């Protein structure tokens, strides 16, 4: 563990995907597990993503970087759910294993040995296309992803969020994320499933 703090209380339970609902704008939205088959549609979503909605450097801007990033996120160790409106992916939430030891980028010495096959912490990110924001899709995506994580045995999830991003803060708090570090440039939050 990296020394991040998490709530003692476990959050949830959350229901994993699939989910189907009508969003606040009356659109029929389906939230499902995502895998390699969703690669093209995810790339399409991020290629068209409004630069204003980027946070902390993601999604990447350049097309090559987008493709590499999406491919990495669809890797084996990660969990992904997508929200579709018809054929389009309009939202995406992901959990990526965090196997970093504090202060060590690459060198893992004998005294700092980390079992990379069993990550304890996961980093979470969620993106919703601008036209679909503010309609309740983020909440559904987030809960579905946390439900999926719970089912997969994920316990500790953290994220960073820009301090001024009130909608995001409200969303994370509503499902049980708690601020774990208010001293860093971005606010860090954690949840225990």
């Amino acid at each position: 563990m990296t020394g991040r703090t998490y709530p003692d209380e476990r959050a949830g339970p959350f229901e994993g995907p699939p989910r189907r609902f009508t969003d606040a704008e009356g659109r029929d939205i389906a939230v499902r597990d995502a895998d390699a088959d969703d690669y093209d549609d995810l790339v399409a979503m991020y290629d068209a993503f409004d630069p204003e909605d980027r946070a902390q450097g993601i999604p990447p801007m350049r097309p090559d970087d987008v493709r590499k990033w999406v491919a990495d996120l669809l890797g084996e160790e990660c969990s992904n759910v997508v929200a579709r409106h018809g054929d389009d992916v309009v939202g995406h939430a992901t959990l990526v294993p965090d196997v970093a030891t504090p202060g060590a980028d690459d060198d893992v010495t004998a005294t700092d040995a980390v079992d990379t096959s069993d990550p304890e912490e996961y980093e979470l990110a969620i993106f919703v296309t601008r036209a679909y924001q503010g309609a309740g899709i983020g909440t559904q995506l987030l809960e579905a992803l946390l439900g999926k994580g719970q089912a997969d045995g994920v316990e500790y999830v953290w994220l960073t969020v820009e301090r001024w991003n009130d909608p995001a803060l409200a969303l994370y708090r509503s499902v049980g994320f708690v601020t774990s570090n208010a001293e860093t440039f971005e606010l860090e939050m954690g949840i225990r499933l």
Partner: protein
Amino acid sequence: MHLLVGVDGSDDSLAALSATVDRVSETGDDLTVALLLDAEAAADVDLDELVRDALGDVNATRERVSGDPASRLVELADGGPYDRLVVGGGSRSPLGKVNLDQFLEFVLLNATTTLTLVR
């Protein structure tokens, strides 16, 4: 122009140094390298050797900086004849999110010298 590069031994700082060395090879700018001796990353490496290797044939003065890396670097930059303070940084989380660590945040908020952040 006179450039000051802060090097603490981290990969980011060495990348910043390398990029700056490339630049001054072409432009002939003056270069000073600040070795941040008490930085966390400096503890595991031979900072002098890394800087020497990165400089190669390029002429540069070296400043050995002890104490708190961020504040001492800013003090050096703002108190000297430097036109640019160059640092590396903005490490990436597992998801690819950029993290500004406390060193970078301090330098960003406190330096009055124009800053170049090498990524």
